[in-house]
Every structure is written in structure tokens, then in C-alpha cells.
């Protein structure tokens, strides 16, 4: 029987099992007697072994078999599921993962270290119930409360489903995007020709296209779960390394995100979690001295708010003090004392996103020097999202990411400034206002207007873009309200042109280097518009 035809299926299903095993290991560290997770872990190793045996990948069989036997001892032999068992299983997951990479690349597999099977077979919990190797710090493991009632495991797929390559999904969304652009072209032609028949056909096509777009987007959605296990693993490892006792909570793992967005979230979220464990969280003694429970909580939660995804990373650690942040920034020459004085607390917290700024007193090998928050912020903005930091000294910090559902096809507010048409993603627009000139107040050098009882500064997009200023003979100033560094701002334009559906294309060099540009798009009449990244522009 020619087994090569099953290789891809073998790889993808094996990786699903590995992912599930990692998750169940951390679940079991939280509740070591959770029967569902024990059974499911055993089944995962068993299935991996069976598949690998069919493919005749002996090295994978050896490791999976060892893991299965260890789980049999836990299941039937009364071996407690302790940190040592967890470590061995996770080691096995890593070993198999490497072997699968070899298989995928059609390389000879590198045999797993000979002592792994032996260590599995000979494993006995040490009397203290701690890990055996004395060289390792005996920090308590991070306990992971990952909705233990739902022991996740891949159930294979129902018959009637197929697996497709991710590039294919990318092609689909690109084609759909080009179709959207062409639809607008047809709409324009229909208008010029004044042909009711053509208009009918185009509006029917538009409806179908809408449906196609929705379906393609659905296909591209992947549950947040797909990247969760990495976070559980890294938080666990970090907590161990830094000797902190903490609980990691995950919420919203079934929320669907565009796979493009999901992939780009791994690094930023890992960084935020690392910061939370390494910088945010205090040592147990420090917590107790501050009257807090010794065990800290780090929480990653994902939710959906209409067409936006909300992701928060929250810790109940030492928090950040805005005043200290300003002092540090002034000391380091990142800002002037005068600039420091006018910063709101929220703006002060955002100072961590300035390259080179760090509040950590010591440098650790865990999260490095605070480098990276600027990269985190940049990555989120690139996804069309925003980052807001809230923190209370002594109580902890919350990093909130707001992301659009998709980055490929967006709705944008089209605005005109002079002869230039630009697009602003509607996710960045709070509202539009037509302001009577008389309502503009001048405070010092700044122009402000009242919005919901708050004085909101006014800026001119013409001025920002270096264009001649608008005249507004009617006395009405068209503007949209957006947010910059935690504050609302009114952006005055010459004209608000309305909403438009755009297929975003990334800009190539050298345009991609220009601050404030998020991408470009072609309108139906062939006109090219730039999509503005307001947060970056202001």
C-alpha cells in the first residue's frame, strides 16, 4: 500500500494531537485528577502511536508509546500526575514535533535521545512530589485553569469535510478582493450607460459577492484556541524559571479570528504575557507583604464586540505608576519635562511603547530589556488595531487590544482634502460631525469643540498631510472623531465622502516606510487611494 498519499493527513492530525496533549498537560497540572483529561491524554498518545505505526515512523512510535505507557500508569496504576509527569510528556511533545518536521521535509528522522524512553519507564515521583532533577529550580509550576471542564481533543473531522492548504485560502480572499474592486468599476459603468438591465445585473452580482465574501471570511476563521497552547506553555516555563507561583487563565478560546490576524498575534501576545509574568508579577513574599494572595493571576481573554475582536492581557501584579513612567522617560531623555507635564495618565503608560523605554529595574534573561513593546504596538497597528494600557499601582495592569475582524477587505470612511482622496478604516472612526464654525473654541493655541461634555481638540488633516487648508464658505466644518494615545481628537477635512468597501493592498517599498500609511486600495474608477493609519499619523 502506498503510504505517501497519507503523509499530509498524518502530519496535520498528529500536530492536532500534540496541541491537544500540551493543553491537557497544563489542564492536569491545575486539576491532576481530572478524569476526562487523563483519558483524553492517554487516547492522544495512543492515536499518535497507531498512526505513526501505520506510516512506519518508528521513532515517533517509540516516543508516543512511552507517553502512552506513562499515561496508563497514571490512569490505572495510581501514579500521581505531578510536575515530573507533566515535564516528561511535554518533552515528548517537543520530540515528536521535531520528528514530524523531519518527516515533513522528507529527511531521515533524528532518533530521540536514548534515555527518554528509559526516563519515562523508570519515572517515580520523588517523596516531596517535586521534580527529580535537583539542578532544576523547584518552583511550583504555573497552574493553568484552562476551562478544565472542557478537555479538548481533536475528534478528527466529520465525514464530508476536507482540508485545504492555507495558501489557497489566501488566494480566495485575494480573488474576492479583486472582485469587490471590479464590482465598483461595473457600478460606475452602469451609472454612465444608464442601462437598467446592466444595473440590475450588477446589483445582483454585488449581492452574490457579499455572500461570497462572508463565506470566504468564515472559512478563514480559526478559533483562538489554535494558538493558545503556545501561551500556556510559555507562561508555564516562565513562571517556573522565575520561581513565581501563578495561575494562568484563558477565556474565549472558541472565538474565531481571521487566520492572517491570528498568526500575527502570536509574537505580540507572547511578549505581553512574558512582560506580565516577568515584570508585572511580584514574587510571592512581596505579594504577601502587600496584603495580596501569594498566588498571582495572569489572564488572557478574547471576546468579540460586533466587528471587532477584543483581547486583554491582565495581571494582578505590581502595576505601573504613570508619574514614575514620566520621570523615567524624562530622565532617559525620551521626552522633555514640559512634554511630561501635559501627559494624561493613560498617555504616560503608553510611554512603554516608545523604543528604548523600559521600566524594569533589572534586566532578566526572560523578557530582555523591555525592548519589544514598541514592536508589539507596531504589530497591532499593522493589523489595523489599537493598544490601550490601564494600570493601577499595586493592583496590576491590563493591556487591551482592539482588532478588526479582517485585515483584507475593510470598510473605510473616504475623505477629501484638497485634491487628495484618502481612506480611514471605520474601526478608527468614532463618529463624524458637521460642526458649525461658531462652536469652535480657542484654548491657548489650540482649537477645541465640545463633544458629550468633553473638550476635544481639533486638528486639520490638510495640515497634517501638508496640503492647503480648507475654506468652508458655508461655515460648516466636516470632521471625524478618532483616538490618539488614549484621547479623542476631531480631524477636520474638506469633505466627508461616505463609506466605501476597500480591498487593502500592502504598500511596497519605499511607500511602506512612510509613517501614517496603512496600505493602498483601488477604487472602482481605477483611482488609487491611500489608507491612513490615524494612530501612527498623529
Amino acid at each position, binding site marked *: 500500500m502506498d503510504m505517501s498519499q*497519507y503523509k499530509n493527513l*498524518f502530519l496535520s492530525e498528529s500536530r492536532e494531537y500534540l496541541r491537544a496533549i500540551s493543553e491537557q498537560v497544563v489542564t492536569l497540572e491545575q486539576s491532576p485528577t481530572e478524569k476526562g483529561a487523563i483519558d483524553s491524554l492517554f487516547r492522544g498518545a495512543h*492515536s499518535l*502511536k497507531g498512526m505513526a505505526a*501505520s506510516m512506519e515512523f518508528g521513532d515517533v512510535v517509540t516516543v508516543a508509546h512511552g507517553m502512552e505507557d506513562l499515561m496508563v500508569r497514571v490512569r490505572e496504576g495510581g501514579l500521581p500526575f505531578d510536575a515530573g509527569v507533566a515535564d516528561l510528556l511535554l518533552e515528548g511533545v517537543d520530540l515528536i514535533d521535531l520528528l514530524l518536521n523531519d518527516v515533513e521535509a522528507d529527511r531521515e528522522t533524528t532518533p530521540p535521545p536514548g534515555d527518554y524512553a528509559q526516563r519515562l519507564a523508570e519515572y517515580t515521583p520523588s517523596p516531596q512530589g517535586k521534580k527529580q532533577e535537583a539542578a532544576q529550580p523547584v518552583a511550583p509550576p504555573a497552574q493553568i485553569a484552562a476551562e478544565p471542564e472542557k478537555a479538548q481533543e481533536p475528534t478528527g473531522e*466529520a*465525514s464530508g469535510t476536507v482540508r485545504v492548504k492555507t495558501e489557497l485560502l489566501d488566494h480566495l480572499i485575494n480573488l474576492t478582493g479583486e472582485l469587490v474592486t471590479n464590482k465598483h468599476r461595473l457600478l460606475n459603468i452602469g451609472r454612465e450607460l444608464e442601462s437598467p438591465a446592466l444595473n440590475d445585473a450588477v446589483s445582483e452580482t454585488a449581492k452574490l459577492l457579499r455572500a461570497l465574501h462572508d463565506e470566504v471570511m468564515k472559512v478563514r476563521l480559526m478559533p483562538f484556541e489554535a494558538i493558545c497552547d503556545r501561551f500556556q506553555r510559555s507562561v508555564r516555563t516562565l513562571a517556573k524559571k522565575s520561581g513565581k507561583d501563578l495561575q494562568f487563565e484563558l477565556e474565549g478560546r472558541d472565538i474565531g479570528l481571521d487566520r492572517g490576524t491570528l498568526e500575527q498575534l502570536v509574537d505580540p501576545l507572547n511578549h505581553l504575557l512574558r512582560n506580565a509574568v516577568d515584570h508585572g508579577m511580584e514574587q510571592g513574599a512581596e505579594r504577601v507583604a502587600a496584603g495580596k494572595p501569594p498566588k498571582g493571576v495572569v489572564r488572557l481573554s478574547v471576546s468579540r464586540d460586533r466587528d471587532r475582536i477584543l483581547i486583554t492581557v491582565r495581571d494582578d501584579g505590581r502595576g505601573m505608576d504613570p508619574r514614575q513612567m514620566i520621570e523615567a522617560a524624562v530622565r532617559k531623555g525620551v521626552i522633555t519635562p514640559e512634554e511630561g507635564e501635559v501627559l494624561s495618565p493613560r498617555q504616560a503608560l503608553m510611554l512603554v511603547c516608545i523604543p528604548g523605554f523600559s521600566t524594569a529595574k533589572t534586566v532578566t534573561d526572560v523578557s530582555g530589556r523591555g525592548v519589544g513593546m514598541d514592536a508589539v504596538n507596531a504589530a497591532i497597528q499593522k493589523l489595523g488595531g489599537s493598544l490601550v494600557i490601564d494600570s493601577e499601582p499595586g493592583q496590576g495592569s491590563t493591556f487591551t487590544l482592539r482588532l478588526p475582524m479582517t485585515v483584507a477587505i475593510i470598510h473605510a470612511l473616504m475623505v477629501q482634502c484638497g485634491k487628495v482622496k484618502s481612506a480611514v478604516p471605520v474601526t478608527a472612526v468614532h463618529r463624524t460631525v458637521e460642526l458649525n464654525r461658531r462652536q469652535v473654541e480657542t484654548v491657548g493655541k489650540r482649537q477645541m469643540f465640545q463633544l458629550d461634555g468633553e473638550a476635544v481638540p481639533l486638528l486639520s488633516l490638510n495640515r497634517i498631510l501638508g496640503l492647503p487648508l480648507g475654506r468652508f464658505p458655508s461655515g460648516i466644518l466636516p470632521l471625524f472623531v478618532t483616538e490618539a494615545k488614549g484621547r479623542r481628537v476631531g480631524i477636520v477635512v474638506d469633505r466627508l465622502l461616505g463609506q466605501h468597501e476597500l480591498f487593502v493592498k500592502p504598500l511596497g517599498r519605499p511607500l511602506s516606510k512612510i509613517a501614517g500609511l496603512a496600505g493602498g486600495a483601488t477604487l472602482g474608477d481605477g483611482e488609487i487611494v491611500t489608507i491612513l493609519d490615524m494612530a501612527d499619523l498623529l
Partner: protein
Amino acid sequence: MASTVMIVDDSLFMRKMLRDILEEEGYRIAAEASDGEEAVARYKEFRPDLTTLDIVMPNKTGIEALQEIMAFDPAARVVMCSAIGQESLTQAAAQAGAKAFILKPFNPELVARVLKEAAEG
């Protein structure tokens, strides 16, 4: 007319392999199921001539599913799939009414022969 078969295994990989082997042999795959509970429900729905049943599965093991299928249809022809080292389980399955056993990893000729015997015997 070709005999109909239902394939039950929690691994998509295993189901696909078995499906290919059996289709090659001229069987018609009436249904697939990926856990014990689904197996019982699908059996009642499709009444296949033959059923291959994996033992280690979520939501009811193969043995539990076998017991329910046999209780529903004492004439059911069920072949258990098991791995080496599960001898104690195969005994329980034989008592519960399994007609035959096939060992993983599958050997296509052996699978074909065992199923043929189970269908006829």
C-alpha cells in the same frame, strides 16, 4: 449488491486508510463515526452490513458502543480494531459479541480477509 460498511475511529487518518482499503475491496462505505456515541447513533440510522469499531475512543469506548449496538441489533456484524497490547480488551469485546478483530497497523490483505469472513460467517 456490495456490502455496506460503517467505519468508526477517532482518527481521521485511520478512517481514511480503512476507507481506501475497503473501497478497493468493493465495499460501500455507508457511514463514518469518530466516537462511540456517534457510532451507536449512526448504526441505528444506517444499519450497515458490517461495522469496524476502534476500541480507544472518546464519548463511549468501542466496547461500550459495541454493547449498545448488540443490544439494539443482536445480528450486528462488528469487527473490532485494536492495537497490540490490548488483549484484555479484545476478550471483553469477544464476550460482548464482536465477530472478529483486526490489528493496527492495518495490513490491507488481512483486513480484507477478516472482513470477508465476518460478512459471510
